[in-house]
């Protein structure tokens, strides 16, 4: 039940941010700082989420088949594969690793 509160709270926050972009005064908008910081934050957060999902396990680190998924995803992206193919490549790599007996 509490998860619902955070789900809806995050939805409200997301919409408030989107709307704020249109409603903030023009004088604030003319500063490029916002765009740069938002870009930097996006790179930092997405990197952290990638790393956490690759090696994170509860409060700690585990090296397992997800590393194969990271490599497969990188190869697919390198070959300019469409996004859905990248995701499937990641799934296949870790599924094959697991079925081959890797952790």
């Amino acid at each position: 039940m509490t998860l619902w509160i955070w789900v809806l709270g995050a939805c409200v926050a997301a919409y408030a941010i989107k709307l704020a972009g249109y409603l903030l005064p023009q004088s604030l908008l003319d500063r490029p700082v916002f765009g740069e910081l938002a870009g930097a934050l996006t790179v930092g957060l997405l990197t952290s989420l990638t790393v956490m999902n690759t090696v994170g396990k509860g409060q700690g680190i585990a090296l397992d088949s997800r590393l194969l998924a990271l490599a497969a995803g990188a190869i697919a992206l390198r070959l300019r594969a469409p996004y859905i193919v990248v995701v499937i490549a990641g799934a296949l790599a870790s599924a094959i690793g697991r079925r081959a007996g890797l952790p």
Partner: protein
Amino acid sequence: MFSRFTPAMRMGTSIAIAVGVYGISFGALSVTAGLNVWQTCALSALMFTGGSQFAFIGVIGSGGTGAAAWAAATLLGVRNGVYGMQLKSLIRPPAKRIPLMAQLTIDESTATATAQDHHDERVRGFWTAGVGVYVMWNGFTLIGALAGNALGDPAMWGLDGAAVAAFLGLLWPRLHAKDPIALAVVAALATIITLPLVPPGIPVLIAAAVTAGWWAWRRRGAEAVAE
């Protein structure tokens, strides 16, 4: 019918189809992360910004709290505010359209609008991509959520690997220069170092803070050089 579309509408439609289909992976990953089908669909319908949605379920799936998931999703949504600013000065929409435009303001609709050269095409591009992605994304989220529930053990199907590749795929197009790559290395190190030290989900927020600090430090350095 497709041939009567303007170039902006064709671009928006192509993007909507390509992007919408991966709603299926969001839906499946969300239920395996521990959200139910309704919560999963609520995120796609109400939050409607893929990166933040993946961040939310990524934190929950790794054992983090709802509060940490909220913070990660919200920080990742900050860029949509910047898109709103850009679109407002680019399109100058009438006030009555703004509430709906705001909800459809995401990476894809902004990219389609800004890629056009003329005002009317920008408007058509924004709405085609925005509405198109919304419809596709929500439909495929539901399909993915129902499929994810039916799959059983997510690890045997490699769904945890799908999440890894999904995040890498969102990050990859942003690593086109030296600066973002340096930022990514800093964020990766901050995450790896703090993973064993703090509760799940918090390393993402620490990495965000370290990234912002690094960015501010680099920026001051660049200004000093410019003077």
